[in-house]
């Protein structure tokens, strides 16, 4: 016999009460008339000696009632051997072990090995077991076939040996991908009929940074259950540092980083600073930063002075080191060239060039050089090949027109500003359209832009209603042309009388923009409006330059190789990898650090900072029911084997007890004993009264 609530048995100690009460001489209600009580003092109830215990049967009955009550409340049950329905058939089990970067925390990987070993010991010879590990990708370490090929006594050792060769990496946790992959592997029975249970044992720290998107709407194979073996880190104190993109318009040199504290962290005070090249020590005096649990702070790190250089920022003060450093590749300034083909004077504010030159400002990320090529200056191929945007204002020679056309076909954007003199020859020379005609339009007062295609990249920047008002940009003069005569022309904006104002003509890899009016004040107010600079920048970007530069990559990302020639790639581990000619990508970014692409001649072509994914630093555990909420069919949450067995035992006991309901009989016995006691006590009292 066992008890469901054995603590209630302590209530049996109450049997001491009736024993004590029986030892105490009862205060009688019987009275004796005496002549005077002046010589008497009140007597306290006194304990009789044990040998003078009276009414032993009554005492026994009272003790019995109390004992029965205690036993009844502790809910007794008779144990019977429980037949496990699943033991008869073999299970198909996948052990899915997390090896993401967050598993690098102090005790997690050893815990994961221990838990996996414990799970393996519970498998039977008939079970089919496979071992998968996962981070961003899912790797099969031991397959069902390998398991089946081994003698049953060696299987667990083999799996553990294979798992011993694995160590936590630096990648993020794509838990959703891992679970669906494992579920599909379980579901794929290769034509066999699955007889037993199919289970996934997920050995993971279940961090909040796990990517679970893939579980949304995923239809689970029937009969597959997921059992979570939750790993708990010894210390919840974790803070991380992440590199942020450079703020728009930032002119000061410096790096912005975000320091985040885990939601369950107990620490608030951290130190952050540049690290020495070959150690984790600070290269200069670190800054103090206070980050409460679950919050983050953005810090601007000034570049090192006094000739020091560093490419790593480290954070100190928390208990977990794996996400405490961020690598920084010094951003290189881009260079773009804009050619202006015209006859303007550089300092004439009535000419387009004057405004074009001032439209592009140099930033830390990019330097734009606007240069004018006069009618007398020849246009070299080398110059054209470096140019991202060519603005044609004056009349071009045939040779130049062909060069511009060739540049456009190679991907350069060309802006053709039409005027009375150059419209036809330029359009004919560049676009190759013979029938192109353009006439000076008659404008009453002014013309405005309407019917603008804000979906086009050129005007997309103005798509927001706050910026889409072009009515204040007046045009005094423009050239009317027939866009229909230009094959492939797409009118991006029209004047208010319906004449085309801006048209795009694709040409090879590039495109030609036809502007019906100039932006100089003589033709329009465009150059003086706020729309001009964004419009020019959009045209430059449409040529493929000026795109936002990637500051950092994450582990597992693909790095672009900026050369078609054979290059070497120097990775953070110190190895030089040779990349074949024509390889445009490198995707084996297995660890964080600086990846350098070096040409065969030894010149540094690119320098990439690869960092840990920010999501890996969100180490606080997921809510317990998160997987269930996403529709994952859960088995029993397995915190620890002992705990599990205890819980199962308790559940079995509860069920047995609810079937047997012995407490009812015990309580009936108690009531019976109580009734007998009452009768006996009454009888005893009567007999005492009669005798007295």
């Amino acid at each position, binding site marked *: 016999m066992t008890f469901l609530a054995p603590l209630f048995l302590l209530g049996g100690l109450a049997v001491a009460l009736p024993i004590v009460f029986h030892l105490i*001489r009862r*205060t*009688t*209600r*019987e*009275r*004796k*008339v*005496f*002549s*005077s*009580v*002046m*010589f*008497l*003092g*009140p*007597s306290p109830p*006194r304990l009789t000696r044990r040998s003078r215990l009276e009414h032993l049967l009554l005492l026994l009955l009272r003790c019995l009632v109390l004992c029965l009550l205690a036993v009844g409340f502790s809910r007794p049950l008779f144990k019977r051997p429980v037949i496990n329905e699943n033991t008869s058939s073999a299970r198909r089990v996948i052990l899915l072990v997390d090896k993401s970067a967050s598993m690098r925390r102090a005790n997690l990987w050893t815990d994961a090995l221990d838990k996996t070993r414990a799970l393996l010991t519970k498998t039977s010879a008939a079970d089919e077991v496979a071992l998968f590990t996962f981070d961003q990708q899912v790797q099969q370490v031991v397959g069902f076939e390998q398991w089946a090929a081994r003698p049953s006594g060696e299987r667990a050792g083999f799996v553990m040996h294979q798992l011993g060769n694995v160590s936590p990496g630096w990648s993020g946790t794509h838990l959703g991908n891992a679970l669906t992959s494992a579920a599909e592997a379980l579901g794929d029975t290769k034509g066999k009929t699955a007889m037993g249970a199919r289970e996934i044992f997920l050995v993971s720290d279940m961090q909040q940074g796990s990517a679970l998107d893939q579980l949304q709407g995923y239809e689970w194979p029937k009969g597959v259950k997921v059992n979570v073996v939750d790993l708990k880190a010894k210390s919840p104190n974790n803070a991380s540092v992440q590199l942020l993109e450079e703020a728009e318009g930032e002119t000061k040199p410096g790096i912005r980083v975000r320091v985040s504290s885990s939601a369950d962290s107990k620490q608030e005070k951290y130190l952050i600073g540049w690290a020495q090249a070959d150690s984790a020590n600070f290269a200069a005096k670190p800054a103090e930063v206070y980050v409460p649990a679950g919050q983050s702070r953005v810090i601007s790190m000034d570049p090192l002075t006094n000739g020091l250089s560093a490419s790593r920022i480290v954070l100190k003060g928390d208990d977990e080191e794996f996400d405490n450093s961020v690598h920084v590749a010094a951003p290189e300034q881009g260079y773009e060239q804009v050619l202006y083909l015209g006859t303007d004077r550089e300092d004439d504010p009535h000419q387009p060039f004057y405004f074009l030159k001032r439209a592009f400002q140099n930033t830390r990320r990019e330097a734009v050089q606007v240069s004018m090529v006069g009618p007398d200056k020849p246009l070299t191929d080398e110059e054209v090949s470096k140019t991202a945007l060519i603005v044609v204002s004056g009349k071009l020679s045939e040779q130049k027109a062909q060069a511009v056309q060739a540049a456009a076909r190679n991907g350069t954007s060309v802006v053709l500003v039409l005027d009375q003199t150059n419209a036809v020859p330029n359009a004919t020379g560049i676009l190759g359209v013979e029938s192109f005609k353009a006439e000076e339009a008659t404008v009453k007062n002014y013309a405005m832009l309407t019917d603008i295609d804000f979906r086009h990249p050129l005007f997309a920047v103005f798509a927001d209603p706050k910026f889409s008002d072009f009515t204040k940009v007046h045009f005094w003069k423009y050239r009317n042309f027939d866009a229909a005569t230009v094959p492939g022309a797409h009118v991006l904006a029209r004047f208010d009388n319906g004449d085309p104002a801006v048209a795009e003509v694709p040409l090879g890899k590039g495109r030609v923009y036809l502007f019906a009016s100039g932006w100089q004040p003589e033709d329009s107010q465009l150059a003086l409006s706020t729309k001009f600079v964004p419009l020019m920048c959009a045209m430059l970007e449409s040529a493929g330059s000026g795109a936002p530069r990637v500051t950092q990559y994450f582990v597992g990302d693909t790095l672009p190789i900026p050369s078609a020639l054979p290059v070497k790639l120097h990775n953070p581990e110190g190895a030089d990898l040779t990349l074949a000619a024509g390889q445009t990508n490198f995707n084996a970014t297995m660890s964080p650090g600086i990846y350098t692409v070096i040409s065969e001649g030894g010149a540094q072509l690119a320098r990439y900072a690869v960092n840990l994914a920010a999501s890996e630093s969100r180490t606080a555990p997921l809510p317990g029911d998160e997987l269930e909420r996403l529709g994952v069919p859960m088995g029993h949450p397995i915190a620890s084997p002992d705990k599990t067995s205890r819980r199962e035992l308790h559940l079995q006991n509860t069920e047995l007890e609810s079937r047997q309901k012995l407490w009812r009989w015990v309580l009936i016995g108690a009531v019976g004993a109580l009734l007998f006691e009452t009768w006996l006590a009454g009888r005893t009292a009567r007999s005492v009264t009669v005798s*007295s």
Partner: protein
Amino acid sequence: MSAVAPKAPELESGSLIDPRTLMSIRNLELRARVVVEGFWNGLHRSPYHGFSVEFTEYRQYSPGDDPRYLDWRVFARSDRYFIKKFEDETNLRCYLLADGSRSMSYSSIGYTKAQYAATLAATLGYFLYLQGDAVGLLTFDESIREFLPARHRTGHLRHLMLALEKPVAGKATNLGAPLQRILEIVRKRSLLVLISDFLAPIERLEQNLLALAAAGHEIAVFQILDPAELSFNFENAIMFEDVESGRTLFVDPMAARKEYLERLEAHCGALRAVCERLGAAFHRLSTAQPLEIALFDFLRQRIQRSKGTRRFARQHSRGGASK
């Protein structure tokens, strides 16, 4: 003429009447008679010879004595002149003061202390009446219930017996009031026999008795107690209820007996000490004791006191002559 000095009588224990038997006689006067007659029979010598409450003395005649007091019978027998001397010219007046409070109604042996006290009072009254003394009665509880002046006439004894037979009706014991009342009423020197259980505070008793003694009264005190009160031999722990005040108290006799007996003895000792200081005779009687013993003790003590008084008187008279 030789003086016939009365000798102290001795009581034969075998002739004593069991109080339980005595109390089975319903008539109080008969009870008193039985005791007194039995008492006489139990004595070795006849009490009719020279035994009196008021002792007489013979002394040889000397010139100057009043010839009226010559005892001619003695002269006839012995041919000598003897003068018959009296302590008092008049007969003895005795007042029996009987406590009728509710505590006297306690009984553990079949009859109450009040019955025993009434029998004692009746016995004494009968005895004195036979001697020709005037006997009065005063019953009291917290106040005076009955009062009969001391007389010696026909029918007085019957009145006295009837008054004593009245059942106990009082509640508390107040010794002060009857003594005060006696002091006011009884002007002549008397013998006051105070019969009570004295189960009440006795702080003011001494003062009252002192006033009576100062008035020339002779005092005899009988304390009547039940055997259960004297031994307190109860066994079961029980609620004890005071018969007078109604106060209840849970008492375990096993634990309380020692203290009770000590306090009772202290109380009785204090009462005895008061009596001794005032020259009053003190007798403590258990209701289980034969009444003859009480009567015997009473008379013996009176004899001793008479001796003492005579000795005291002689010493004073000689001392006065020498002066």
